[in-house]
């Protein structure tokens, strides 16, 4: 693979770790001329959004992303006038948002040579929105650049995907992740390595584990519940569901507090009643989105965390200890893992997967979680 050319680019994409293929594609686009649309796709938490904004800075900066100029600074903090972000309004990107984008794209840039549109969670476009967007994508104004970000590209219209240059992101390799944690947060090598294995290539989860006490506590909670599950009685499983719901509640409360703080600040700036009602509305939408995202992230964490525990048990039982993810729990895993239960462990993981599928629909959180715990238990009997 061609290494990235010049030190400039590596500084520009400094927050993106262990994605050489994606950075090669984006770096070359900045140096040799860009296509009009890019689709940054790959698993959650591996730095796609950071890369999208860094790329946007590169497109807006007269020097292709020098990292020090004012264009770069404003673009990376999302306040450049020639950078527009489109994100789901509630749970989807709506046709009105796309119409606004189309109208804006018809106008030439304000101060840079281009106008960049970063479209987050692009797969949430409603079908009418996607079709409207397709029109713009088919005949883009020469100054417009679209950067789509998606962790579920298979849910995008194929006609949209085929008009974008695809930029694949992968799970952050453990080695690169560990090195990043070491250099950025000053972790000792073995701690960084252990964390990298726990996070399983999810960069943002690894970072959250590093600097957030509550994220670490959530992990301990999920693992201890998973560990307790085989011996838990009926009432205790109900209690476990309560504990998980309480954890989701804490996450939502934290997200709400964060949004409310910003709202208070912006309300003070909004001078007249019209501006206030606009801020109010914008924050309502955002609040709903953040709540939903907090619950979703919490559920994902519970499902993959508990499935991960049983995966590790299976691995230990099969005698392949070196591939354990929760390396810091090796002693407990050795204690609990029984070779005779290997097929049961696989059943448990399958139950977790089914639950994950179920959450793509509008299901009741508590019911589905309880159901998951019981079906996991059943598999272990």
């Amino acid at each position, binding site marked *: 693979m061609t290494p990235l050319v010049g030190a400039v680019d590596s500084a520009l994409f400094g927050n993106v770790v262990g994605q050489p293929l994606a950075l090669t594609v984006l770096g070359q686009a900045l140096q040799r001329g860009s296509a009009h649309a890019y689709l940054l796709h790959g698993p959650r938490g591996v730095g796609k959004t950071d890369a999208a904004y860094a790329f946007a800075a590169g497109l807006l900066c007269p020097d292709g992303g020098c990292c020090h100029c*004012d264009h770069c*600074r*404003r673009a990376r*903090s999302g*306040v*450049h*006038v020639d950078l527009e*972000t489109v994100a789901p309004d509630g749970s989807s990107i709506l046709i009105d948002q796309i*119409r*606004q984008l*189309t*109208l804006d794209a*018809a*106008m*030439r*840039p*304000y*101060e840079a*040579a281009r106008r960049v549109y970063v479209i987050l969670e692009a797969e949430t476009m409603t079908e009418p929105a996607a079709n409207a967007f397709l029109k713009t994508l088919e005949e883009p*104004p*020469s*100054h417009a650049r679209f950067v789509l970000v998606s962790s579920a590209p298979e849910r995008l219209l194929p006609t949209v995907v085929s008009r974008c240059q695809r930029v694949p992101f992968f799970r952050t390799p453990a080695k690169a992740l560990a090195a990043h944690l070491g250099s950025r947060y000053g972790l000792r090598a073995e701690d960084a390595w252990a964390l990298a294995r726990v996070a399983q290539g999810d960069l943002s989860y690894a970072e959250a584990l590093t600097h957030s006490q509550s994220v670490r506590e959530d992990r301990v909670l999920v693992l201890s519940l998973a560990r307790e599950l085989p011996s838990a009685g009926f009432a205790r499983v109900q209690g476990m569901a309560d504990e998980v719901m309480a954890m989701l509640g804490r996450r939502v409360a934290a997200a709400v507090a964060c949004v409310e703080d910003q709202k208070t600040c*912006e309300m*003070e*700036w*909004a*001078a*007249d009643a*019209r*501006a206030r009602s*606009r801020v109010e509305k914008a924050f309502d939408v955002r609040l709903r989105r953040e709540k939903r995202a907090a619950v979703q992230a919490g559920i994902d964490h519970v499902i993959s965390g508990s499935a991960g525990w049983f995966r590790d048990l299976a691995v230990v039982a099969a005698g392949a200890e070196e591939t354990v993810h929760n390396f810091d729990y090796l002693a407990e895993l050795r204690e609990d893992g029984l070779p005779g239960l290997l097929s049961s462990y696989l059943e448990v993981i399958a139950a977790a997967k089914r639950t994950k599928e179920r959450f793509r629909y509008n299901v009741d959180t508590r019911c589905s979680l309880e159901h998951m715990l019981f079906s996991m238990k059943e598999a272990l009997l």
Partner: protein
Amino acid sequence: MRIVTSKADLVEALGIVGRAVSTRSSIQVLTGVLVEAEGAGITLTATDMEISVRAPLRGVVEATGAAVLPARILAEIAKTLSPREVTLERKAGEQQVDLSCGEALFSLRILPAEDFPRLPLFPIEEGFTVAKESFLATVDRVAASASRDETRPVLMGVLVQVAKNVVRMVATDSYRLSVKETPVEASVKEKIQAIVPARCLTELSRVAAGVAADSITVVPTHNQILFQAGEVLIISRLIDGQFPNHKQLIPENFESEAIADREEFMESLKRVSLLAPKSAPVRLQFEGNTLTISAQSQDVGAARESMPVQYQGEPLEIGFNPDFLLAGAAGVEEEDLHMRFISPLRPGLLRGQADDFLYLIMPIRLGE
């Protein structure tokens, strides 16, 4: 930064830049107005990412500096101050500006000035000047025909063409089309053409009318256009795309022509159209030298009025949107209104004696 100005000057300058303050942007700093105090004087700047307005603020700079202040609240404060000297001061390192006027003192938190967009740089030497009055008159007669339909952005703009002796502006919303050519002494080297958002031109018209200057400086670049009237700058992003070719749209030959007294026609039309609510058509019947304007509403009733005209051609019955027809007649601005037609389903043309202003209007199909 420390500046001393007066209430009246502050209100005036904020009034000029106020319309460009963003109301819907996600970038917070755009809800502010940038106050810059330099050796040369004080300027206020506001932008909503589409248009930017910069205006001077009369006053004394006691210490240079810059700050972005919340535009709406500042304008409201300014309006309610007593008519006296106003001091704006930002002490070094502080994130607030103290505004004092008499005994009143406001401490306003400021927005990060470094996030405020830079106004694009314009090669002033590549610009040209046009006479203000004729330029603005052209804007006023054409811009209203521009579309407000956001799904066709090109039509939300006005096509501005400038040649050595003439400015031509074209606007259409696909139901009507206005073209105005104004002979004007423009210091322009080659022909220039741009699609300028109608909103920018109406804003220019509003601001420039109040400025004591005889000419407007225009500097078009590839992406933006700058207008300077006196010391006020208005900058707009240009619209990208292909503007409809108005020469192809305007028919060359017509079957019939009517000449009417414009004032009288407009008066009659206004009366009759009271019974043509919500874009229901008014009916024009030409026969002999009489024009009968009529309208009917299912719920309310009917109206008709006849007036004498000079008419050449076969008897004709044709329907129009009364608002669009009225706007066209108003744009002609001459004593006689010339109306030309081909057939009830082909567009009609409104004009004066000369052909410097043309207003093409699509008819509405009439029921029985």
